[in-house]
């Protein structure tokens, strides 16, 4: 296949081009791999330390008269973080149980219930909260930052964080009974 009369010298691919191609491929695969990992990861798991976050609260649903609550301020108490939304039908199944359990722990000052409203509208949220007589701290998850941090897969989901800020238990879906909720809290109080 040698042409005698008209051949320009047959060079291979220049090295810098090769390097660029391989580097681009590695970067592409890394990004896609990351995306895949994310898609498969699921929620944060027990044992993970939860980074600090600030939850703004609806007026009328403050925590100790503060309109914001920071997770780090709650160190030393058991935190029950519940993700819900007014448009979420399964959330309604557990709403009363959550409120009644809160009422038993309210005065102990050892447990904090935080309701995090996931992509919701305030008027509808208030209707929901009033419907179930909920009075613990509730606020919107602005920009879905907190739910992204927990990598929630849907609503409702409840996360139990112990006194040292470590996640101890994840409940996907509504609680079947108030006792289920209580037993989890009792475990963490010890």
């Amino acid at each position, binding site marked *: 296949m040698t042409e005698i*009369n008209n*051949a320009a010298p047959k060079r291979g691919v220049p090295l810098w081009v090769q390097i660029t191609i391989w580097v681009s491929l590695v970067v592409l695969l890394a990004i896609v791999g990351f995306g895949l990992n994310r898609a498969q990861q699921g929620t944060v798991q027990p044992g993970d330390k939860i980074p600090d976050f600030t939850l703004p609260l609806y007026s009328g649903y403050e925590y100790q008269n503060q309109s914001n609550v920071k997770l780090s301020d709650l160190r030393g108490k058991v935190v029950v973080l519940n993700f819900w939304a007014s*448009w979420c039908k399964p959330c309604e199944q557990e709403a009363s149980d959550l409120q009644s359990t809160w009422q038993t722990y309210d005065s102990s000052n050892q447990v904090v219930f935080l309701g995090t409203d996931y*992509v919701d509208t305030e*008027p509808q949220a208030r209707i929901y909260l009033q419907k179930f007589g909920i009075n613990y701290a509730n606020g*919107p998850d*602005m*920009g*879905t930052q907190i739910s992204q941090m927990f990598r929630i897969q849907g609503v409702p989901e409840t996360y139990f964080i112990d006194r040292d800020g470590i996640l101890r238990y994840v409940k996907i879906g509504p609680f079947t009974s108030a006792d289920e909720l209580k037993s989890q809290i009792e475990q963490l109080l010890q």
Partner: protein
Amino acid sequence: MWMKKQLRIIAYVLTLLLVLAGLWVGSAKAQTPTPPTDDQVNAIARQLYCPVCENTPLDVCPTEACRQWRELIRQQLSEGWTDAQIKQYFVANYGARVLAEPPRSGLNWLIYILPPAFILLGVYILYRALRTWIKPSTAAPASSESDAKPLEDEYVAKFEEELRKRN
């Protein structure tokens, strides 16, 4: 006598004030806007994406949540919010992915800059390629000459060698 006149003037002024007040109230009532039409809500919802569904525009999304958001837009429109304000509200509450395009800030500039950059790079590559190819008869024969010559010389040398052998 002039007391009665003063009273009359006061009465007229009061009546005038009352009429003016009535007009003012009346005009305020007339200013109550009609609720925003579906079209107006849709015009904004079309530019937003449903925060929970996958890649579904807000005006066609059938879920309960989307219904609430459209009602929210309707309410905000009736309060006189502008398009930009509504969009900003949605972004602040639900994240940047409700917008149809990444907001032009920070890393997102890459999405707007890289494609034109790559295309220009492609244009440049094509330009260089065409330059080298359409430098027709001047460049190629010269190099092929120098390439061909050694080979030709080889053959000539061999030929002469053969000739010498036979002679």
